[in-house]
């Protein structure tokens, strides 16, 4: 029973995190996949070279000069959110659990409208390069930026580890390369994109990858559905016949076992999106609030469509992959899926499209990881150079050239760090890091960001204390949770019973922030509250907002 609970609790984590958290066995070299992947890398490096020539100012480097259109940015945001994990993890979850997988998928989606309604345009109107710009708008620059950089870098580092380990495992499995080789390739290519091409290159890599992923996923779904005469009813009948869950796959079931954990996870996901620095940063790449809104609409449409495609893949794999002994260890249909539980979509690709299509989809999955990792590294580097170096150390008077240089060095350091951490964590189960990442994003970054935009009463001391409370409580709860305290550290029972902290840490962060702010009667606090009205005018009208530069 306990095992079932733990594995259930890990499911959503796996889905986001990453492809293959379980150790994957190495496969023979897959030359088609490698060739296609190298075409992708070569193509994107040409784009990087082109982007490098256009990247002159700090604004070019951080936000592509604000010159990305709403539609392009929408695709790039969708790319940031549709990781290889979504394709592989979610489809595998639907394959294994049926309807429960679909319920999780819906939860991954619902945060997006909230970002559109409450965050997107104010973010664009108030900020320039990082979300700390907004959080520190009327508060103490140095203190709040330091906190925001802390929050951003924590999220970026944990998310990088998850992606690097996922990449290593996936590549080992799909391409037949050694784990460290795979991790080094991802790290090095990422550094090239970010240091030379900045946000322009990162955006285009993300766009190309989003298009490939959407096209690949859709083609796969169409080919799979053609076996059922494009009828979901036929598919459902066949699936119920062959799946060991029987009729159970058509309704919610096992996820009811731990509703509190499920609620906590869904809260973390819904509000964590609005605290992920690499997603927030994307809103500064468009020229104005209007395009920012448009870009979330486009992104939401693509992500929603893709999630429905992924659910279709999961259900059709029940019939196509689930009845074919070729895709099971030792040909045992009741046994384990060959190559690990997350490989269902890949097997489906092989079953309906042969080796060539499998190679294509593998290359797309690898490209996806590369693109997500680049976005993360750029967000982390901006936080170091723009928040810490330019504003905290130089007090906002940094020389632009030096600032870009610092940013590039930071990107290289983050890349090297990602490679080292990726190799260190090879054998570790990193699923808990996803709960942690979203938990921190929802408990530290999100409360401060939303309160700074909407609540006049917020003061520096409130934001600082509340933010750190959210950060520390989320980390502590995850350390004491079953997935770390029991699975990683090997203790008997967990001290904190849930893997996802947001249900507890997020309200705690809000409470501390609000109470401390209300009790704050310093002269500075009065000034900060008074400054809200002017901030609101800019948030509403966009007067004074950073403009796009055309060149």
């Amino acid at each position, binding site marked *: 029973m306990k095992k079932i609970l733990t594995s259930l609790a890990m499911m959503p984590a796996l889905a986001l995190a990453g492809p293959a958290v379980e150790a994957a066995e190495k496969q023979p070299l897959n030359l088609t996949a490698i060739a296609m992947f190298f075409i992708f890398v070569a193509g994107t490096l040409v784009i990087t070279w082109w982007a490098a020539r256009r990247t002159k100012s700090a604004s070019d480097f951080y936000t592509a000069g604000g010159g990305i259109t709403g539609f392009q940015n929408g695709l790039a945001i969708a790319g940031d959110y549709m990781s290889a994990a979504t394709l592989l993890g979610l489809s595998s979850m639907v394959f294994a659990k049926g*309807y429960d997988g*679909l*319920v999780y*998928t*819906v*939860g991954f*989606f*619902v945060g*997006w*409208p*909230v970002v*559109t*309604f*409450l965050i997107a*345009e104010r973010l664009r109107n108030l900020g320039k390069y990082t979300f700390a710009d907004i959080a520190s708008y009327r508060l103490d620059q140095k203190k709040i930026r330091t906190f925001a950089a802390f929050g951003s870098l924590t999220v970026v580092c944990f998310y990088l580890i998850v992606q690097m380990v996922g990449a290593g495992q996936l590549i080992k499995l799909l391409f037949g390369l050694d784990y460290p080789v795979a991790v080094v390739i991802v790290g090095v290519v990422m550094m090239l994109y970010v240091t030379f091409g900045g946000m322009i290159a990162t955006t285009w890599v993300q766009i190309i990858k989003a298009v490939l992923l959407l096209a690949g996923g859709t083609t796969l779904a169409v080919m799979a559905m053609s076996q059922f005469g494009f009828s*979901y*009813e036929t*598919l*459902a*009948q066949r699936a*119920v016949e062959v799946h060991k869950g029987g*009729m159970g796959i*058509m*309704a*919610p*079931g096992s*996820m*009811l076992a731990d*509703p509190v954990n*499920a*609620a906590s996870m*869904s809260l973390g996901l*819904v509000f964590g999106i609005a605290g992920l620095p690499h997603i927030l940063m994307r809103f500064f790449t468009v020229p104005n609030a*209007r395009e920012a*809104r*448009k870009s*979330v*609409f486009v992104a*939401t*449409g693509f992500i*929603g469509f893709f*999630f*429905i495609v992924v*659910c279709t893949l999961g259900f059709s794999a029940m019939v196509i992959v689930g009845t074919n002994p070729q895709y099971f260890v030792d040909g045992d249909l009741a046994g384990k899926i060959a190559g690990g539980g997350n490989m269902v979509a890949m097997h489906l690709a092989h079953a309906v499209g042969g080796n060539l299509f499998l190679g294509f989809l593998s290359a797309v999955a690898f490209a996806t990881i590369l693109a997500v990792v680049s976005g993360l590294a750029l967000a982390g580097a901006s936080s170091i150079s723009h928040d810490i170096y330019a504003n905290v150390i130089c007090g906002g008077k940094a020389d632009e050239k030096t600032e870009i240089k610092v940013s590039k060095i930071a990107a290289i350091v983050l890349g090297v760090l990602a490679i080292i951490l990726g190799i260190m964590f090879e054998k570790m189960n990193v699923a808990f890091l996803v709960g942690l990442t979203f938990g921190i994003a929802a408990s530290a970054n999100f409360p401060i960001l939303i309160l700074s935009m909407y609540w006049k009463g917020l003061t520096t001391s409130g934001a600082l204390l509340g933010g750190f409370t959210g950060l520390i409580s989320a980390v502590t709860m995850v350390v004491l949770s079953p997935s770390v305290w029991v699975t990683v550290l090997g203790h008997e029972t967990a001290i904190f019973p849930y893997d996802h902290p947001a249900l507890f840490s997020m309200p705690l962060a809000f409470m501390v922030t609000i109470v401390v702010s209300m009790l704050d009667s310093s002269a500075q606090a009065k000034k900060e509250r008074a400054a809200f*009205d*002017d901030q*609101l*005018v800019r948030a*509403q*009208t*966009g*007067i*004074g907002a950073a403009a796009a530069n055309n060149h």
Partner: protein
Amino acid sequence: MSNNINDRIRSNPKYRELAGKRSRTAWGLTALVLAVYYSFMLLVGTSPEFLATPLFEGGVLSIGVPIGAFIIFFAWACTGLYVRRANSEFDRLNAEIVEEARK
């Protein structure tokens, strides 16, 4: 100088109209989307047998599948609704406010 602009904007009734309309729309839609999603989660938690009802007489595809897909579509449609209203009505009002403040 910039404070003057801000003061003038704040005293413009159109500004209050814009701020009021926008915040009602944004918070209203947020509440709507979250209410629909959490009602769905409540349904998942309390009456899974309802979600298991076959969509067609004698079929097996359950009503829960289109409901799940509908929630994704509904959330996206709400986004579209907001963006459309903001890009036309709100932006028009906003442009007038900025114009009047610069005079």
